[in-house]
């Protein structure tokens, strides 16, 4: 349980993100969502009719991830299949996956969570500094990722295991 890790691990891997305007905002966001979750069940159970387009067939997922990005800038990324439209939220068939991009010196590592797809159903394309990811089959994911630098498409290596796709790309020289 207590693997020794590099720095400041005395408190486990707990990271205090409770600082600054951004993180305060996220705190409020979580409050709102939690309130919604708590209220959701009791209020909603009174009646059955409402419209979120697409919810009949599918499940709506909406989330965000926060991390310190390249260069120390915190980045907030969205994922899921609920899209905001002028007519309110819509549940789409395709889900945007959770994706992380790591700068590993000479190469870029992209890690995407694609649970529930088969390896053969994954398509990855790269053009200049844009990586396009999509899947066919029972679960559909789609995502375009702007890479931090230009890459050489010929160097692309992909691996899929237990629902995680890893793509390695050499930077263009």
């Amino acid at each position, binding site marked *: 349980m207590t693997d020794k890790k590099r720095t400041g691990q005395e408190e*486990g891997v707990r990271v205090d*993100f409770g600082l600054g305007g951004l993180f305060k*905002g996220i705190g409020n966001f*979580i409050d709102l969502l939690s309130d919604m979750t708590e209220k959701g069940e009791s209020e909603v159970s009174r009646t059955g009719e409402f419209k*979120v387009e697409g919810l009949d067939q599918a499940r709506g997922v909406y989330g965000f991830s926060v991390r310190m990005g390249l260069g120390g800038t915190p980045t907030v990324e*969205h994922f899921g299949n609920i899209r905001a439209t002028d007519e309110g939220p819509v549940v789409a068939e395709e889900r945007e996956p959770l994706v992380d991009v790591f700068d590993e010196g000479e190469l870029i590592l992209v890690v995407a969570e694609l649970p*529930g797809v088969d390896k053969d159903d994954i398509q990855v394309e790269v053009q200049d500094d844009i990586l396009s990811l999509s899947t066919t089959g029972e679960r559909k994911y789609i995502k375009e990722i702007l890479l931090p630098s230009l890459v050489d498409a010929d160097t692309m290596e992909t691996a899929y295991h237990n629902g995680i796709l890893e793509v390695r790309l050499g930077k263009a020289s």
Partner: protein
Amino acid sequence: MSTELGDMFKGLGDLIKLATDLADKVDLSELDEEKIAELRRASQTRVGGMPRGVYGVSVRRGVGGIPRVQPFGNIRRTERGPIVDEVREPLADVFDEDDVLLVIAELPGVEEKDVQLDVHDDLLKLSTTTKGRKYAKELQLPCPVEESTTESAYKNGVLKIRLRKSGAEEGA
């Protein structure tokens, strides 16, 4: 269309906008150098490649058309503000299929042998012990289940668990 429900989903739309705004409004000037260094250290602690905060909700149409909202992720509320935990709550759904309950959980990045299930009455505890990714979730099931009839299968990051309801006779 009920007003309350409309409000709830209007709320969801607002939240999406809020998160989008947040992404645009990252302002480092409010953070002092020490905090930035702290965050940078944290981000370099690559615990299986995921030292980041994740928070989300899943919305699905439940029994009788009642939408069910379930949170997931590893950002927890504390009195000192949100913190990012090492352990992530997975996305999980429970389906009622007559004699059995089907639970589908998304656990990308773990091995099947590292998944632990503990069933007691109407509570399902799910956890993983992988070095890299850690998941944990307690699910309140809609009814009690037989503890001895749990079947599970893990494939491509998705865990499916079949639980026989208590009192449901074999072949009944």
